[in-house]
């Protein structure tokens, strides 16, 4: 490497010399040579300054590269005994310490998932994990979304370059409903042979290809519920949701339904509860309406049952989905959904 500008070239050579002798190579970036160059920069006239500045940056980049290349050779002290509990020349008294207990914290989303699955577990719903990389059939096809159906566009799905056996991209699931087919399939035998209903909740990470802002995340958590048995009714669905929500908020609530459209349920609803934070007096959480829309749900579409191998003449069932992030945001009054995956301890340490 050679610099046209004499002043820079001289500095380069000087720095190379220093670099050779430095024990901690990274310190070259703080060298007095750089400090002098920057000082010089200030005193230059306007015509000369930009190109000189550029050259300093190039020089700095060169040394950043050298620092990375030198990698471990310069910086690493002697090898350590990785099998030991502490370093040489230390004693039992110098054992590393755990961080003081009061600083530990649990992520509010995983805590809430645990609370929700605990309630459903008591109600007889088995927990099942969802996938983070799924296929087109489970995201759409198995849920009665025909190929190219406009309803697919409501989900801005992430797709991979890599493709599955059927040459379609893999998909980052945009809802936990993508597990319905698998859950029903898995419970089919027990349902048919011993009339054991399929009852599962599926918490999971889901993804939407959206721009981020305080109310939109591309990564968030949902919990899906699936129940299939004989003579399962809309009344059962609404009672199950009522029971869950009243247990979750530990108070009696009022409920409303709103018709909705999902290709994988018929009929489909949005389920609203009276605002548990203001008891219908009106607050900012319920937008002063007294009610909060909390769940999407419906009776599982016969085609979805059929695709999972279940006889839709004999069995019926319901499914529902709830957004965990929203539950948590409402509960604590969290103003920005992006905090959840920010790794900011100022945020995380508030949740014990």
């Amino acid at each position, binding site marked *: 490497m050679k610099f046209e500008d004499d002043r820079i070239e001289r500095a380069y050579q000087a720095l190379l010399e220093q670099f050779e002798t430095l024990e901690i190579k990274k310190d070259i970036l703080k060298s007095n040579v750089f400090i002098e160059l920057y000082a010089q920069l200030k005193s230059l006239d306007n015509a000369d300054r930009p190109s000189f500045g550029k050259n300093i940056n190039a020089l700095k980049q060169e040394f950043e590269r050298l620092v*990375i290349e030198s990698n*471990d050779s*310069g*910086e*690493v002290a002697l*090898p*350590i005994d*990785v*099998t*030991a*509990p*502490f*370093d040489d020349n*230390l004693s039992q008294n110098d054992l*590393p*310490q*755990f961080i003081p207990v009061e*600083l*530990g*914290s*649990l992520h509010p989303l995983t805590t809430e998932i645990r609370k929700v699955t605990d309630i459903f577990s008591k109600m007889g719903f*088995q927990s*099942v*994990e969802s*996938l*983070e*990389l*799924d296929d087109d059939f489970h995201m759409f096809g198995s849920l009665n979304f025909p190929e190219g159906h*406009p309803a697919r*566009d*409501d989900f801005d799905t992430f797709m*991979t*370059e*890599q493709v*599955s056996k059927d040459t379609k991209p*893999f998909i980052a699931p945009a809802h936990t409903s993508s597990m319905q087919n698998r859950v029903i399939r898995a419970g089919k035998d027990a349902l048919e042979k011993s009339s054991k209903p399929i009852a599962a909740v599926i918490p999971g990470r889901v993804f939407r*290809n*959206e*721009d981020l802002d305080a109310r939109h995340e*591309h*990564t968030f958590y949902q919990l899906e519920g699936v*129940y299939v048995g004989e*003579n399962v*009714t*809309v*009344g059962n669905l609404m009672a*199950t949701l009522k029971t869950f929500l009243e247990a979750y908020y530990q108070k009696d609530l009022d409920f*409303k339904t*709103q*018709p909705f459209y999902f290709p994988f349920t*018929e*009929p489909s609803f949005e389920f609203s509860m009276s605002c548990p934070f203001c008891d219908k007096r009106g607050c900012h959480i319920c937008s002063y309406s007294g009610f909060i829309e909390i769940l999407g749900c419906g*009776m599982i579409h016969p085609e979805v049952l059929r695709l999972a191998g279940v006889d839709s003449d004999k069995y019926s069932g319901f499914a529902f989905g709830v957004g965990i992030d929203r539950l948590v945001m409402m509960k604590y009054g969290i103003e920005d959904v992006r905090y*959840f*995956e*920010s*790794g*900011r*301890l100022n945020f*995380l340490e508030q949740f014990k």
Partner: protein
Amino acid sequence: MKLSLNEIKDLVNFELPSPDELVSTIGSKLGQVEEVIDLNAKYKDVLIVKVIKAVPIKESNHLSACLVDDGGYVKQIERNSDGYIPVVCGAPNVRSGMLSVYLPPNSIVPSTIKDKEPFVLKVKPILGHNSNGMLASEKELDLSDNHDGILEIDGDFKPGSSFSEAYQLNDVIIDIENKMFTHRPDCFGQVGLAREVSGMYNSPFVSPDWYFKDETVLPRSSDADLKSINQAKDLVPIFNLSLLKGIKVGPSPLWLKVKLARLGIKSINNVVDVTNYMMMLTAQPLHAYDYDKLKALSKSGGVSLIARRSEKDEKLVLLNGKEITLEEDMIVISTDDKSVGLAGVMGGLNSMIDENTTSIVLEAATFDMYKIKRTSMVYGLFSDAVTRFTKGQSPYQVDFVLSKAVNLISKTTDISNSPAIYSSNEIDQQSANSVLVVSANSVNKLLGTDLTPETMQKLLTNVEFEVSVRGDEMSIKAPYWRTDIHIWQDVAEEIGRIRGFDLIEKINLRREATPVFPHPELNLNSEIRKFLSSRGASEVLSYSFVPQRILDSFSSDPNHHYIVKNALSPDLKYYRSNIISSLLDKINQNIRASHDNFAMFEIGRVHSTILGINDYFEVPDFRRRLAFVYAKSDKNSKKIKGSSYYWSKKYLDSLFDYFNVKTRISYRPLTSIKDDLWADTANGFLNNHSASVYLDEKMIGLIGEFTAKTAYSFKLPKFVSGFEVDLQSLLGLSNESQYSKLSRFPTIDRDYCFAVSKDKNYEQVVKGLAAALSEVLDSSLASEISLVDIFLKDSSETKNLTFRVVYTDFDKTLSDKIINEISSKIESKMHASLGAKLI
């Protein structure tokens, strides 16, 4: 979708309830109401007035000093001795005797009502004349873009009448979320919404005659003036045209302008307004072509309009002036020579109607909704027509709507010919709704209701289903516009919804008293979360996707990653193949936020192409992982003795202890990692200060410090270490406590300091000691070893490890003599096995 109360009140057969009540019922029986717009707020102050006098102002070339008669309606305003209000007006069409509309002072100009600062009128002196408010143009009234003059009212109204009452702008608009109507094309029109509203109030709805009676349809024609040719019947179920000659294209009558304005559509001209109005009524988009332009674009003498598949690279200039290059296999409308429109999406510029148009071709058709969707996405064209064509309207409504449109146009202009319909094909009978036989019992069983078949029949016939009942069995035919009724569950939805789902009794499921077993993986996660958080670590969740930068900092091969091909942000390009790099990425920001000493962990999944496809799920395989990092800020780590490695190791050792596997764990140098995925992650770990973690002979993780490159790219402080372990390997391990009986005799401890060669590691020495103890001790004697210190002199070839051994005998009290004997046996064994010298 906007619903105009004034529009639907003329369509239903009952008195509409109050808007509030209607909004709540629509919410529970149709779909979410997004907004309620009170149009009256916008138009309430607008008055119809008579211009009494309009005298040009000398000093101006266009202003007139006017006197208007408001019938004395406006209070506290300047009036002349006759009681008329002085207003200055700049419109060329202002003249005495005309009826126009007037905005008094302090009223808001309607077109500005949504502006940040709505324009509020004031009394203003202009060239020596006071202007009290203004006479308004269509543009100022938000009816059209016409600003050529003030609005002329053609009708018999008393001065001072309310404009909004006279033209029914005293409307309430209820905007319902479109998502609810993904499968309901009929609900994208006022007729369909009126029918739904009737149904929900249990009132029988009858569609207007023109919407379903065959006798209202124009006759078919096969004359030579026009020909409809459908060359893509699989994509174009119906393609019908009409020809209107000798017409005049001009402003619409006010009643039509107002109907459109209520639904937020600006008036363009009479032909376009009629097509838009019909679309708002029925959700059937129409398109008008200039007949003479089509003729000029044709090779042969007559005009043939053809619906066909596009050819590759065909060019078309659209109404918005943009030229597009077509892909193969989209639907275009063309003459026998030139394409003139992108079917269902947007017309062509070359055949657009204008003020000189005298003959038009009206097109009413339906198109394959998937094709329209795709075309709209490819060119980024989203119009009201696309919104409707992608819901899949019935082809059966085409003739009705086309005929009604011709009828409406005839009310706005003379037509010199007798319009007819040109059609190339009949509708495929398969698209007709067939009769569904539905059991009332099944419906009740699904809903959890107890309705009689007759009740169900009534609910359905209210919205124009044909229903006959025989016992439990209902034969049901949905009307032609309902393209969403295919199976009996669709009928059950209709019944439950129109009646009101909220009326259904909530009945809890009954179940057997069997316990639900915890999910092993989720349970393990919980245990670990509890364990680490109670030792001061904070749980983190971070994205499953990582940017190139993070791969680079770990020197991870991009080919090992699943790649997201359509991510909006480049930060989301790769599925992560380890979690520890995501955690390292969170350290610097927390140091900057003044956290000096912290540990973070995350439990999550990693994906990699290395893992191949999961046999059970048939999707990319994954691994469950726990990652942990420990960091101290530079200012906080100055006084810390020893490597940061041991701090993370303490956490990991302690976790293994919790799962009772401490003795099965070993830490081995990073060399020769056989597992490709671990090898990829190991690139970020610093040799000599890191280890592979083994459970028995299986590698289950990595622990250590990080390379200078990694540290540099994450801007890490000096004191950082961490680990990542596979959780699948910990599954099934028990964290049950293990009890061993207590001895009644006192314990004795003894420290041993062994000098061993520098190249021996702790594990070798401690295992040697344990082996020696187990050989030497009787079965009644138990021992427990712990390390006291390790001493290494710089120049020395040996190092000293001091252990404390606690002896417990279960049968007798131990004497020094016994221990001394044991100690000397151990000394010789240690010497034999490790060359260790007892000091």
